[in-house]
């Protein structure tokens, strides 16, 4: 990371300089190093210093910019004080679709840097909170060339606007023993199957897909994705009682640390036998015992995923956490069932949503009933914490002869 040089007499950015102190790596140091080479980075610092003084931002509202053939992937940004900070007069961001799981070769990283040094501010985010590589700040005139060069090194743009947003996935089978399916491959295939929707905003609003290999949900799919795919298993978890004994022998308080936190008390500890007993049908696959004793307990063998729908942040009707839509789905190449379901869902949403209405809000407005009809899925008890408490039940006219 950038090397912090603390001696700068008569600094232009006394306030920001304060943020070069302290043990955590400093974004200011990053900017300062770039500022040595790039006027844009220097003016970014100077404008930010002004914001630190006035406690307001100095960017104008939005602005539509882009590259040929695409409608999304670039966030337009203009300084509101271009005379004062000419380097950031135009300071647009490119969202570059990361490889599944955020794996890189050193070569790919260097290529990205080369492209960005050529066309932009030299500043990046690894990564944006949706998951893209963020190339932070280029003038309008450089965007197309930058994209052309990106395309030469094999990096495409991600989403912005009313489109599919760049899907992301947890590290999954690449490094995690808990993965119930190939999160990385599924993410890649979904991304490829929806290239048109990713690059050309044609939907009422954004739509996010995130993929976690197990209920630990290491990409926060349930909180941040309209369509959350989370690994699970259909059968009983596997317990290796010998390994259990080994944990016990090491002094682990299995009753206290494991059984007492099992949400359904499906697990109990037989201290005499040094054995874990499981009431299989009571397990709700919360991962806790597996997390605590990965050497002894594993998911079952009938692996797949739960599909949850509707997650999003606050705007407009409050934040929603995704809720269960399909309790169990196989997630295996060629992913026909998954892609088909995703297509039906986005089609229904695109047909029915108002402008800027996330799918969760649309379902809230029209009811799960209407949504399930629309996408051809049955109602199952797993969808709800509890059935309805109000008696405002709709009947289809054909049900009431």
């Amino acid at each position, binding site marked *: 990371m950038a090397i912090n040089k603390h001696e700068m007499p008569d600094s232009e950015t006394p306030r920001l300089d304060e943020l070069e102190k302290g043990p955590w790596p400093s974004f200011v140091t990053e900017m300062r190093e770039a500022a040595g080479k790039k006027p844009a980075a220097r003016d970014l610092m100077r404008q930010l210093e002004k914001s630190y003084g006035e406690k307001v931002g100095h960017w104008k509202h939005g602005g539509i910019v882009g590259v040929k053939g695409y409608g999304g992937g670039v966030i337009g940004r203009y300084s509101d004080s271009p005379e004062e900070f000419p380097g950031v007069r135009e300071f647009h961001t490119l969202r570059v679709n990361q*490889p599944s799981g955020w794996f890189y*070769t050193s070569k790919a990283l260097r290529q990205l840097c080369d492209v960005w040094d050529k066309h932009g501010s030299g500043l990046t985010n690894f990564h944006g909170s949706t998951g893209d590589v963020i190339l932070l700040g280029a003038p309008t005139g450089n965007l197309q060339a930058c994209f052309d060069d990106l395309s030469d090194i094999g990096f495409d743009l991600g989403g912005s606007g009313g489109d599919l947003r760049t899907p992301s996935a947890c590290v999954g089978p690449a490094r995690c023993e808990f993965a119930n399916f190939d999160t990385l491959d599924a993410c*890649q295939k979904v991304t490829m199957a929806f290239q048109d929707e990713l690059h050309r905003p044609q939907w009422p609003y954004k739509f996010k897909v995130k993929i976690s290999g197990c209920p630990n949900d290491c990409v926060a799919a349930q909180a941040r994705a309209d369509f959350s795919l989370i690994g699970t298993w259909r059968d009983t978890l596997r317990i290796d009682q010998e390994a259990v004994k080994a944990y016990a022998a090491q002094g682990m308080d299995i009753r206290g640390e494991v059984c007492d936190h099992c949400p359904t008390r499906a697990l109990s500890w037989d201290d005499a036998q040094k054995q874990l007993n499981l009431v299989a049908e009571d397990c709700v696959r919360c991962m806790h015992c597996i997390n605590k004793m990965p050497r002894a307990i594993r998911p079952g063998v009938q692996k797949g995923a739960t599909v949850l729908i509707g997650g999003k942040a606050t*705007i*407009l009707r409050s934040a929603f956490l995704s809720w269960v839509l399909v309790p169990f789905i196989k997630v295996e190449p060629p992913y026909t069932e998954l892609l088909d379901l995703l297509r039906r869902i986005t089609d229904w949403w695109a047909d029915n949503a108002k402008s800027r209405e996330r799918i969760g809000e649309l379902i809230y407005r029209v009811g799960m009933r209407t949504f399930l009809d629309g996408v051809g899925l049955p109602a199952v008890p797993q969808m709800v914490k509890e059935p309805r408490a109000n008696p405002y039940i709709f009947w289809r006219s054909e049900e009431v002869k």
Partner: protein
Amino acid sequence: MPKLDFGPPDFHAMLPPVIKRNYGQWRYHEILKPGLLKHVAESGEALFTVRAGTPRLLNTDSVRRIADLADKYCDGYVRFTSRHNLEFLISDESRVEPLLAELKKFNIPVGGTGNSMSSIVHTQGWIHCHTPATDASGVVKAVMDELFQHYTHMDLPAKLKVAMACCLNMCGAVHCSDIAILGVHRTPPKVDHEALARGCEVPTVVASCPTAALRPNPRLKSVDVVEERCMYCGNCFTMCPAMKIMDGEHDGISIWVGGKVGNARTAPMFSKLAIPFLPNNPPRWPEVVDAVKNIVDVWAAHAIKGERVGEWINRVGWERFFELTGLPFTDKHVDDFIFSVPSFRSSTQFKW
């Protein structure tokens, strides 16, 4: 003419050989020390992961330095995590300590695993966005400096996930974090009627308001803000630049606690309001830093092992949370939006 719609690079090309060999065949893992994971495959092969912090905002030279480290210790491969940490993937155990030594030399912190605090997921703030109520990177830096030891030590009752977003759009997905730092406006937008008439559609602007605080003003072909219905979310500004919402004097930060995302033990939970407002006090936001530290300290002192912040609060009760943290409870803490009623205490069961 560039290619279009070719998508992200195939991740397979980005995987180190040790992973390719053991893909989907991992058997278990251990945390050897803070920031150092060991994954063992069915084959018996082991993979060592060193997790390291970054400021997320990186310049290209820094990224190249990371690439150099990857070449030197990891056969040319590296990854980032879903919380923007770096992960160095090492197949040869003997390279672990040399890498750690070199990271130390560069002042790159190693940690964020197990029962520690990971890095703070955050957003653009004054660096790149048009609607922030505060900066993001600056606040994050100040807080991380203060809580640094919890990143490098696994000294907490459970994982601690802190997130920061600079406005109510919540790009950092702060709504389900153990502790969330959220920029808030507190004054209604100031309407530039001329600009609105010129550039925005009145019905769209009116429809953008969650609390119906906007009324058409047909005379001016603009809108009026019914101030007592406005809760300053800024969504009208998102839809229309004429609804200026930033206010250097009154914008600031709110603190939220007790959210979680994963399904481990307990279901995911939203973060709930702890502190409605703290002032913007750049460059180091001391009030915010102190507030976060206080909450972390109280949690660390009172939670039982394995309890996330929200799990702890649910056990002891929110009454006790406010008492222990010394934070005042106000009418702002009581929900008054769509789903308010289910959040009310419909029971005589409470603590004094």
